[in-house]
């Protein structure tokens, strides 16, 4: 990264195809094998990117274009998708555009949906399976948090594909030889008729203001947990760490309206949910708004909706802004709206239409574009979920503004009042703080579960505005066919945010009961050391380490694992490590943020019970009096 401009320095580094784009190439090659057609690859980058294009040609692509110009340097995702979409038009007619899920350096995933917005064609993100039905229509499966969503889409369209789509082939020697002969035209800004002021660093709405390295040195804390009092203290401390990192968000059941109903009755009496007039009254002239997205998942308001409110509330209070939760669904109940208010919203705008029942990027985006153009929010926040990460880049292009992906921290610049959006990049190796100085709204997606929702405050007042939208979807080119929940392997170790793992210290297969129970309580995946796998206590897919899976969960909690070098190789990038091991000299304690020296059979069951209690009660962690709150 260039420390001055905060942009990627792409010169002089080994120019390879973005590994995730190889899946896009493979998907295209398979379509071509089955249905004919020709494949064009485009890359925007320094002249060295030609090497990557040749790799694509040698795999079997037909044509390649290099988009290279000093004027392109420093482009953010807005400018990049602008250049790419212009070049796509320039290159002639097309039926389908496929991109990788995201680039492994910038890691935003915004360019694909952005291109679709520029070209005015549908986009399906996170596609894991696709099949051409006829020359004008394809069937696709999207990998979402809820399961596999099946859709049908008319061509032309944009797809962003995930790894499941197909394993990329290796280029053959003959392919390499042929690729070497192909001339790759280079397109510049003037070839494309682009004004240099509207692209590159100059044309990018977002600015990187600061780059820094996340604190890598793990702060180690050791707790002896051999006697009763110590054990209790250790459990409290674990809960506290879990809580600080937002791992104790209440279970969905605890979030719904039932336990809350009686308490709300009061507000209803005191302050009935108000009308549009009230909204105008509550929103005095010049009072700016922060919008947060509220989504339903599996028929319930998703916890990310409340997490966003917890992000927005302090910012709004600091700058005298209002927080408006914008909920999209077929129908939004009063009690859901009340819950949003109780958890920090000043106002709820309910966009209701049968066509909003399931996520479809184009339809949701157009619903929000109309509203945003009308109300001019200052900030829009959405969760960095599969839907948020497709919707927001589309919306940002439509609104002509910048977007920052997957933020882990938000603040307001004391001087300009601009939103400072901090996010990890390059696999979390660096952090970048980004600002949108000249464009409004300022938009960001927020990493799910990186905040804890606020405690519901039933005394909070707010208003609800219902807007019924046209029942016909704005975009009829996409049809949602259904959702398959069962087939998704939600135990996916590599994707899990929390992994609870066990090793030889569990003594026998039955020992994994304790690990599973805690994993269930935390909504975590189960991992294991090779010793445990070799003994047949658990299947090989659970093995973590050099010859198992390499994982980067936010939390790795392990018990009865010594921390052999091969095991550690699999968890090097875990954000927080909590180890439970009776041996004070076990190497795992040297890498753990929280090292609990004690008997796992004593600690695990009690920890599980405590976690369940907290998550079900949705109350702040009790019994932390012994420990000081500290950032781990």
């Amino acid at each position: 990264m260039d420390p001055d401009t905060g942009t990627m320095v792409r010169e002089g580094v080994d120019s390879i195809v973005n590994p995730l784009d190889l899946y896009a190439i493979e998907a295209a090659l398979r379509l071509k094998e089955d249905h004919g057609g020709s494949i064009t690859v485009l890359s925007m980058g320094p002249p060295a990117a030609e090497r990557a294009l040749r790799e694509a040609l040698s795999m079997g692509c037909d044509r390649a274009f290099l988009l290279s110009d000093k004027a392109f340097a420093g482009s953010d995702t807005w400018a990049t998708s602008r250049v790419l979409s212009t070049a796509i038009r320039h290159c002639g007619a097309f039926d389908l555009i496929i991109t990788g899920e995201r680039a492994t350096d910038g890691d935003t995933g915004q360019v694909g949906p952005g291109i679709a917005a520029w070209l005015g064609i549908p986009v399906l993100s996170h596609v894991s399976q696709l099949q051409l039905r006829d020359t004008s229509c394809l069937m696709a499966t999207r990998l979402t948090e809820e399961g596999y969503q099946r859709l049908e889409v008319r061509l032309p369209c944009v797809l962003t594909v995930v790894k499941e789509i197909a394993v990329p082939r290796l280029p053959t020697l003959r392919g390499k030889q042929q690729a070497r002969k192909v001339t790759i035209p280079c397109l510049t800004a003037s070839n494309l008729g682009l004004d240099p002021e509207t692209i590159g660093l100059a044309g990018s709405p977002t600015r990187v203001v600061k780059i820094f390295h996340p604190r890598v040195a793990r702060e180690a804390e050791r707790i002896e947990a051999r006697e009763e009092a110590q054990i209790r203290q250790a459990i409290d401390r674990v809960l506290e760490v879990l809580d600080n990192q937002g791992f104790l968000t209440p279970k969905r059941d605890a979030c719904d309206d039932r336990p809350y109903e009686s308490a709300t009755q009061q507000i209803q009496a005191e302050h009935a949910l108000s009308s549009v007039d009230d909204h105008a009254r509550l929103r005095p002239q010049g009072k700016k708004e922060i919008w947060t997205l509220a989504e339903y998942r599996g028929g319930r308001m998703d916890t990310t909706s409340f997490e966003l409110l917890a992000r927005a509330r302090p910012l709004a209070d600091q700058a005298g802004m209002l927080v408006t939760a914008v909920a999209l669904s077929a129908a939004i109940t009063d009690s859901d709206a009340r819950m949003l208010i109780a958890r920090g919203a000043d106002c709820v705008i309910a966009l209701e239409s049968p066509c909003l029942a399931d996520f479809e990027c184009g339809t949701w985006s157009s619903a929000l574009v109309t509203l945003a153009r009308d109300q001019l929010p200052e900030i829009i926040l959405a969760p960095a979920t599969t839907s948020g990460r497709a919707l927001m880049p589309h919306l940002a292009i439509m609104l002509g503004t910048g977007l920052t992906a997957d933020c882990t921290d938000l603040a307001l610049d004391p001087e300009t009042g601009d939103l400072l959006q901090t996010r990890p990049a390059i696999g979390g190796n660096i952090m970048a703080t980004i600002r949108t100085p000249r464009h409004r709204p300022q938009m960001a997606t927020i990493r799910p579960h990186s905040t804890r929702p606020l405690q519901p405050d039933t005394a909070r007042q707010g208003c609800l505005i219902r807007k019924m939208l046209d029942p016909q979807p704005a975009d009829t080119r996409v049809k949602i066919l259904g959702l398959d929940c069962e087939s998704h392997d939600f135990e996916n170790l590599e994707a899990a945010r929390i992994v609870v793992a066990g090793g030889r210290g569990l003594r026998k297969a039955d020992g994994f009961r304790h690990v599973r129970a805690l994993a269930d309580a935390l909504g975590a995946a189960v991992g294991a050391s090779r010793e445990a796998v070799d003994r047949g206590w658990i299947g090989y897919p659970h093995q973590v380490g050099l010859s198992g899976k390499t994982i980067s969960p936010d939390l790795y909690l392990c018990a009865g694992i010594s921390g052999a070098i091969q095991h550690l190789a699999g968890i090097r990038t875990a954000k927080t490590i909590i180890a439970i091991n009776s041996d004070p000299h076990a190497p795992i304690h040297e890498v753990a943020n929280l090292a609990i020296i004690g008997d796992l059979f004593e600690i695990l069951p009690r920890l599980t019970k405590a976690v369940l209690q907290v998550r079900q009660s949705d109350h702040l962690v009790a019994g932390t009096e012994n420990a000081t709150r500290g950032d781990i």
Partner: protein
Amino acid sequence: MSTPLQQEIPGTSSLPHRYGRVTPSIMAELQSLLGQDQVFTDPDKLQAYSHDETSIEDYGHQPEVVVFPRSTQQVADLVLLANRYRIPLTPRGAGSGLSGGAIPLFGGIVVSLEKMQRVRDIDYENMTITVEAGMVTNDINNVVRDHGLFYAGYPMSLETCTIGGNIAENAGGGKAVKYGVTSRYVLGLELVTPSGEVVRLGGKLAKDVTGYDLVHLIVGSEGTLGIVTAATLRLIGLPKATCDLLVLYATPQAAISSVPTILTNGLVPTAIEFMDRSSVEASCRYLNESLPYETCGAMLLIEMDGSDQAQVEHDAEAVGELCLQQGALEVYVADNRTTRERVWSVRRNIAEAFKVYSPVQSLEDIVVPPARIPDILPTLAELEREFGITIPCYGHAGDGNLHATLVNPPDMDMERWHAVEHEALEILYAAVTQLGGKISGEHGIGLKRKRYMAEFMDPVELKLIKAIKQAWDPLCIMNPGKLFDPE
């Protein structure tokens, strides 16, 4: 532990009385020498240090105590103490060995070097690095890479094994065709002898004929002639460009037959690795990877490296063409980080994959003159037929070194398996010897192959080896029972 095979190891039950046991008072001495937190006797720890990567059921033995010295002085003190009470010592690196070398056959003390992993010196002018024996081999490259330097002697287990273990086994790796094995890179050693003296052998020298070449006597001595505490290693310039070819053949025979042709063609590959179809299949399944193995009987993974990208690509192309002329079905090219890591990780994970899918097996390490490897395949096929077992095979074909893996079929009971394993190995080793080969190329003899070494080695050579051991370690306390049985 009393599995059938252990009782077969002659002498294991009668000999221990020669050795002293680690009594409470000796424990106290150990603790005062090393400090409380470097001496362990809890059962969990003892169990973990009772085996290496060979089967724990077949070869495992518990030590009486495991110690973690932090300095050469501590190692020397420890050895002196062992001399006083005649307690067997077993040096240990990472325990990734495949011949049982780090297993304490007679109990006693396991001396783990894993806490000694400092870099003592990097000498850019002489292109050497001096490190302590417990340094993980891959870490050496992590330290020197930014300076454009490279330690080329590493084995496939590089992320795991220690340099001390590599030296003790004279490990070879995936680059040995061009760069040679560990011994080529060991210039100097710091050694604690079996009697507890500290000696420095060799140095940062390009040549040295001052006396016997003791450095290279220690390299490959499997921890039986002393404990290596530090080593001075030769570094070379990091190759700037690398290109791998994954070459598919219809049959293992076709793949192996083209190896001598490639080797004598004038271009020197860094590696020529062989993988038969079931090896690739197992590893792909294990890694959830997919290489186009369905259509082939075997693959060669050929690596070319050098300082100029265009030249390397050109050489690789020439080798690829040669393979096609030799009847290869297809040649795939991996010339960037992503694809190279993909193909090499398939190669690296074969052993691990077989451990998961065929836990009862014997991983062999036969070596023959490189031009003779096509001649060994018929023997393997014959063994498969005769004994009704499968023998997937992979390895460093360019070095004539193959890891034929005898796999226990699911329906064969353990007793029968051990008999079959033994009989098959006798035939295999005889064939290897016939071709001018040896029973181990890089994994060593250790416990696992000592009965066969006694059988297939020239008796005079064996006598000389025993004489050397007797001269260096008259009390026979340094890793006893490895290579051959103590007299």
